[in-house]
């Protein structure tokens, strides 16, 4: 996972004086993340949680960030992400929910054009116990270990991480891909990283209805992943055509169902837990 987050990760928070930016920048610092700066127009020279505030991302270049957490309101995400891309920041994590997917597509392809990794939007970020956390996952649920978790959800991920930690496991990396129909990193992207990561022995994929990324992940696992993988899929009971909280969690024209995803994992030899709490059992 050193490609994404490691001891050299230096994070800025775009929108650091907002409600989320203020709280979570503090939590990240407590977790041990190097939060080197933040932006908030009109507040340069001030600080939040001991973190210096800058006017623009260009100005933060003086503290040499290589990652950013974007926590601005949805209408301003495109601008903030373009600012980070233009400044050459190599990992862009977007916390914000309700970003129009047309904006996300643009950000994603501009980022790809410049070899920049985009994570999110609308996900809890990435946590690597012992190294750093970028995002909003609660610090107390983690213990360093060998399980890597990738998920499209926030709280459900904490539930699962909590149950892993309680059951005596620990986590190498936990990554929330985001609940939108278009997100930056996908399961396959992170599966590659998990397979290469020396700290990871087990992999947990948490999927949900909508799209076919779980199906693609299942096919990828069968071909490329030698580590143990278990999965959990949520949304079995969702009525078709309804968005279940996440913009991406929707069964449309019979595609994106939980059944299809569970079937795909089973066919790839990945055990699928019936309840989140069953995940630790499947890993034993």
């Amino acid at each position, binding site marked *: 996972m050193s490609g994404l987050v490691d001891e050299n990760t230096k994070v800025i928070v775009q929108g650091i004086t907002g409600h989320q930016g203020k709280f979570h920048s503090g939590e990240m610092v407590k977790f041990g993340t190097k939060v080197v700066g933040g932006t908030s127009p009109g507040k340069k020279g001030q600080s939040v949680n001991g973190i210096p505030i800058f006017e623009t991302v260009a100005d933060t270049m003086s503290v040499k960030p290589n990652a950013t957490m974007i926590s601005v309101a949805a209408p301003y995400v495109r601008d903030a992400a373009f600012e980070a891309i233009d400044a050459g920041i190599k990992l862009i994590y977007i916390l914000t929910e309700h970003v*129009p997917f*047309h904006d996300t597509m643009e950000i994603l392809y501009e980022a790809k054009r410049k070899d920049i990794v985009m994570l999110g939007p609308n996900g809890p970020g990435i946590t690597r116990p012992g190294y750093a956390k970028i995002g909003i996952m609660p610090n107390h649920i983690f213990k360093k270990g060998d399980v890597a978790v990738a998920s499209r959800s926030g709280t459900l991920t904490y539930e699962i991480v909590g149950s892993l930690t309680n059951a005596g496991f620990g986590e190498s990396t936990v990554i929330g891909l985001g609940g939108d129909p278009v997100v930056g990193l996908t399961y396959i992207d992170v599966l590659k990283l998990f397979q290469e990561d020396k700290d990871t022995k087990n992999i947990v994929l948490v999927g949900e209805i909508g799209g076919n990324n779980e199906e693609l992940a299942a096919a990828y696992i069968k071909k490329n992943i030698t580590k143990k993988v278990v999965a959990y899929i949520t949304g079995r009971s*969702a009525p078709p055509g309804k968005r279940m909280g996440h913009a991406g969690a929707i069964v449309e024209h019979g595609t994106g169902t939980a059944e299809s995803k569970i079937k795909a994992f089973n066919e790839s030899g990945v055990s699928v837990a019936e309840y989140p709490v069953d995940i630790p059992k499947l890993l034993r």
Partner: protein
Amino acid sequence: MNLYEYLGKDIFRQNGIPVPDGYLVEKPEDVRKYIKPVVVKSQILLGGRGKSGGIKFARSDDELKNGVRELLGSEIRGLKVTKLLVEDMIDIKKEMYVSISLNRTERKPMLMATTEGGVEIESLPHEKIFLRLIDPLMGYSDYIGREASSFMNLSPEISSQFRSIVSNLYKIFVKYDCELAEINPLVVTGSGSLIAADAKVVIDSDSLFRHKEFNVVDPEKTKLELEAQSKGYSFVEMDGHIGVIANGAGLTMATLDALTLHKGKPRNFLDLGGTDSVDIVVTAFDLVLKANPKAILVNIFGGVTKCDTVANGIVEAKKKFNIKQHIVVRLSGIHEVEGRQILKDNGIDAFSDMMSAIETVVKLGSGSQ
């Protein structure tokens, strides 16, 4: 958000895609004098309206008035018809299909087109459909339309109209933040003109802040869902009887799934979100109670949200709304012990693990009351 046909056609008209002349009828007085043959089309968001009797053809003033009278206020597959579109009848020689949609797998816009329109695109064999991803940074350019025309074997006259329509359809897809912009059927008339006989435009709800022109009520949401939306909640009505409040979309879905696997039937999806506030909990109860559940399950994993805050919210809601139904709560995470104590003190079942809460609420919800 799915737009009614007449709104979709307004967009088409304003953006250079030919549509039949027509007008909206919301009450019988809106009907204009009969001049030439027209079609009266129920404005409901369902495929196969025609087969369900939602479309009438009128070749006289009487037929027009009768058609409007029959359709307005009628119910089609459970949906009440409150708006009709009265449109000039078109001389259909051939029906084609074209759409631009988001391809979630490839994360790119996708053009689909076929000369076999007028039916559901899913029902057509794959090899009859021209399917092409569009690079979102490069966008649409004429060569893509030429590729489609070539695949579809269009004559030069039809191809040039078709390419202009696809170009405008892509502009609409981008300009109005569409998930889908579909013309089915795209009609070739007897005189060789192309005209959009239907319009299906689905707008990304997250983009509405920049599309004040669509400040319309989402026709596919229930009254309660709209109320919840206006208050900032993700809320979906379902057909069971166990009210559900949880935090996080994924955990809420997982809660519904667990209930269902235990033969419990959820009444709703309600995501509290990540905010830590008593009021938000109280309002969530208000919404759930309006759905008249037999029992209420609260499932909280305290990350940012603190369990004692939620507990206080539950207690306040119980008093405020004088809740008689059983409330079963699962609290885990930050301040869970304090939270459960607050609930116990107020006579509310509180668990630390999700499964026990599920089992209990299913038992209580299906039982006496």
